[in-house]
């Protein structure tokens, strides 16, 4: 029920608590947190810059979210994605899906991540300790992952 793109860090526990506050109709909550790793292809990283396409990003995430809500009976959803400069160990993305039953919550969270990875206009640039670095290449496996959710993936 919410999509946010922000520079600031997020607090997974606080986000879940806010989402559940005062509700007794939710039986299952699945969260995915993506974090910046300290290493890429064997090289130690010092930072990463996340660029995005303001306007399209929010619109695309909202489309991804409403697609999930059309597929599964979800009582709450949340997508928070950071942009700007991040350090190893920092949070990058949080996805939350809440439902009556666990399989809907698991499937929806997994779907949201697969779609986000292949459609939301974010780009990562890594900076290594040795001064090297560059734009991260898209992984073919992310395109394969999104295809398992059916035809809408190829829009």
């Amino acid at each position: 029920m919410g999509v946010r793109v922000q520079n600031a860090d997020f607090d997974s526990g606080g986000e879940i608590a806010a989402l559940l506050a005062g509700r007794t109709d939710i039986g299952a909550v699945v969260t995915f947190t993506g974090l910046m790793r300290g290493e890429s292809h064997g090289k130690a990283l010092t930072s990463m810059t996340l660029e995005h396409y303001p306007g399209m990003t929010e619109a695309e995430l909202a489309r991804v979210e409403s697609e999930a809500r059309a597929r599964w009976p979800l009582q709450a959803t949340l997508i928070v994605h950071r942009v700007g400069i991040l350090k190893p160990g920092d949070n990058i993305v949080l996805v939350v899906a809440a439902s009556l039953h666990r399989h809907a919550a698991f499937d929806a969270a997994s779907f949201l991540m697969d779609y986000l990875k292949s459609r939301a206009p974010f780009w990562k640039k890594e900076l290594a300790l040795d001064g090297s670095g560059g734009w991260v290449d898209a992984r073919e496996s992310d395109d394969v992952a999104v295809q398992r959710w059916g035809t809408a993936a190829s829009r």
Partner: protein
Amino acid sequence: MTVRLLYFAWLREKLGRAEEIIALPPHLGTVADILAWQATRGPEYEVVFTRTGIVRVAIDQLHADLSASISGAREIAFFPPVTGG
């Protein structure tokens, strides 16, 4: 047709610009057409847009494939495959 062109990630860096307002030649009908035309606009453009298999396009903030029409577009964005998440 005057449109706003946007560039992201390494396309932005290679072209040395994030956006430009430009009048498109009237004969451009599809995404494939504008990609081909971009490749003719100078050395940096040639380098970037000859790799058409890699450049992705969004028209008015919606993903568009090669056969999509650019007619009526106000904002056309060019970028590499996305790597968020």
